[in-house]
């Protein structure tokens, strides 16, 4: 997919024009291919979940309603309303067709409740948390990795590496609850859970509270939203920062040992500037990794949301899990699969901007 193109330097037109043309033409093609590649991923997961939820033994309707004595006619009626009496094949394609039109069906529990509407309502909260968590993990991971590489083979280095390895295996709900105990219950510095104080009124535009409160100039809401996101973002970010520590450390060490760094020294470039150049080279693989990690971030977000009662897709999923609301669970899986595909595409594009060697 991404390939390193070592074409010979041809003098044809101005460099800017050539660069742009390369970037743009190739980019369009690349985006098209990558976008097309998202489809099979989503399809495979949809199929998997469909098989698991619908075809495996166990009647979803019974599972939902429990084993109460419901008259068979009434059961049939419910099945019919949900389309569960049709052949599997028909169900499979019907649902797919609807999803393609943005319709995820209706909830099995609250009849008539559109899942699409629910998801759209919850999505901004999850994205807000995921982005904040990603930023925290990058901040922690990149700075500790940098420090470990510069102080390589010292006590500091060892300490930071152990820190990275241990934080990575922390159980998210535990860390989150301990944070709540310490910072919310004992020290009373921050709120324990939720996304914003209930008595703060905020006019939502995008659904991202932080963004909305800035857009509407609502200082109170901004303060409240920020104070609510600190603990969950710290929890998620801290746990996911370990791999970045390791990656940045090893890449920076590799870069500092490279020939071009030696050549920089030979030409009399300041060490601080050389470190910066090496750092830039070392960060490129980190971007790719951030893309790969996004799936982990989403998984972590589910636990973080549950622990902090954060009203996102994660808590939605867990609520629906409690009720065995199959269509809703199926919808979450599809949305997440789509998410993962899109994010990896975006990351690849950022990668291309950072690394001039990549042309599509």
């Amino acid at each position: 997919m991404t390939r390193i193109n070592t074409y010979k330097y041809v003098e044809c037109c101005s460099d800017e024009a050539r660069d742009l043309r390369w970037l743009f033409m190739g980019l369009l093609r690349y985006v098209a291919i990558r976008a097309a590649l998202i489809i099979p991923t989503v399809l495979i997961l949809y199929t998997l979940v469909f098989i698991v939820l619908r075809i495996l033994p166990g009647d979803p309707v019974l599972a939902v309603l429990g084993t109460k004595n419901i008259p068979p006619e009434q059961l049939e009626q419910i099945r019919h309303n949900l389309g569960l009496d049709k052949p599997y094949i028909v169900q499979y394609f019907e649902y797919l067709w609807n999803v393609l039109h943005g319709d995820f069906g209706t909830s099995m529990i609250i009849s008539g409740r559109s899942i699409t509407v629910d998801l759209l309502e919850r999505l901004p909260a999850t994205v807000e948390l995921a982005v904040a968590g990603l930023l925290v993990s990058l901040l922690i991971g990149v700075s500790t990795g940098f420090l470990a590489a510069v102080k390589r083979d010292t006590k500091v280095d060892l300490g930071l590496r152990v820190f990275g390895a241990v934080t990575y295996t922390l159980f998210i709900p535990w860390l989150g609850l301990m944070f709540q105990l310490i910072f919310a219950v004992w020290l009373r510095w921050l709120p324990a859970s939720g996304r914003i104080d209930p008595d703060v009124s905020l006019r939502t535009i995008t659904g991202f509270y932080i963004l909305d409160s800035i857009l509407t100039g609502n200082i109170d809401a901004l303060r409240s939203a920020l104070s609510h996101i600190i603990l969950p973002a710290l929890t998620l970010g801290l746990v996911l920062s370990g791999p970045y520590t390791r990656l940045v450390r090893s890449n920076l060490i590799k870069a500092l040992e490279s020939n071009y760094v030696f050549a920089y020294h030979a030409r009399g470039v300041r060490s601080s500037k050389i470190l910066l150049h090496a750092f830039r080279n070392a960060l490129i693989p980190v971007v790719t990794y951030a893309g790969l990690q996004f799936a982990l971030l989403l998984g972590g977000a589910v636990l973080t949301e549950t622990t902090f009662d954060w009203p996102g897709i994660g808590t939605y999923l867990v609520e629906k899990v409690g009720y065995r609301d199959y269509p809703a669970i199926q919808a979450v899986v599809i949305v997440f699969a789509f998410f993962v595909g899109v994010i990896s595409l975006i990351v690849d594009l950022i990668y291309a901007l950072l690394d001039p060697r990549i042309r599509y």
Partner: protein
Amino acid sequence: MEVLGRTLARILAKIIPLRVSGRGRILVYTGLVIVLAVIFMAIAAPVLTPYDPTRRAGRSFQPPSWEHPFGTNNLGYDMWARIVYGARTILIVVFLAIAISMAIGIPLGLLSGYYGGGIDRALSMVMDAIYAFPSLVLAISLAVALGPSLFNAAIAIAVIYVPTYFRMIRGQVLSVKEELFIEVAKALGIPTFRIIFKHILPHILPTIMVVFSLSAADAVLTEAALSYLGLSVQPPTPDWGYDLYKGKGFVLSGYWWLIFFPGLMITLLAVGFALIGEGLSERVRREQL
């Protein structure tokens, strides 16, 4: 900390001789100590506590004391008893899950890597799709579909590590396949399955060990997550993740022992497996150089 690790390593090296050197060995032995301690807890549970983990042992919400070292919960159950018996639950689920994913992932990876072609492409695609997906969400939907129980939780967890084993084995087979002795074995007309089991598998055993430990660490966290969400064994069976979830309800009351101990155990066990994996991988890395 380091001194302790080194001393333990020296003692353990006498008992379990491992061909891992230096820093790797300290990691492996520290991890082994933790994991073995938890296994010991699970086996010796009745000896370690006089209480039944599913019966009231005293007043509710007692903080840690000599009588109840980890305190009591809202129902007056002894938390220490729940921890030691809970070790059984998580260990069973984790080992069962890993065994299932190995039993599926390793043969599929061997086949895929050895034969290549259409099977390989199809299998790889499915595995990559699963691998790229948030594994916890997948495990949750599987656990929901199968219904909450110990065995079903193991299956749900197993599915998400199948691609890990598949990819690792497939990659290794692809690289080993190129080597001369396999070519020779083929030329000699040795049956395929014998080549795989006699010549390829032994080569990739160290890597399997590493992946086993690392995926066990991850599986501990996944099991805890499922039971935290009420998707593993059902109450009142003691289970660390579920106890942590129950503790969540009492955060605002400040009953820290209901949260601290179950979570600590989950993290410790995961760290133990991870350390073993890290230590072993030092050796594998060196051998592959």
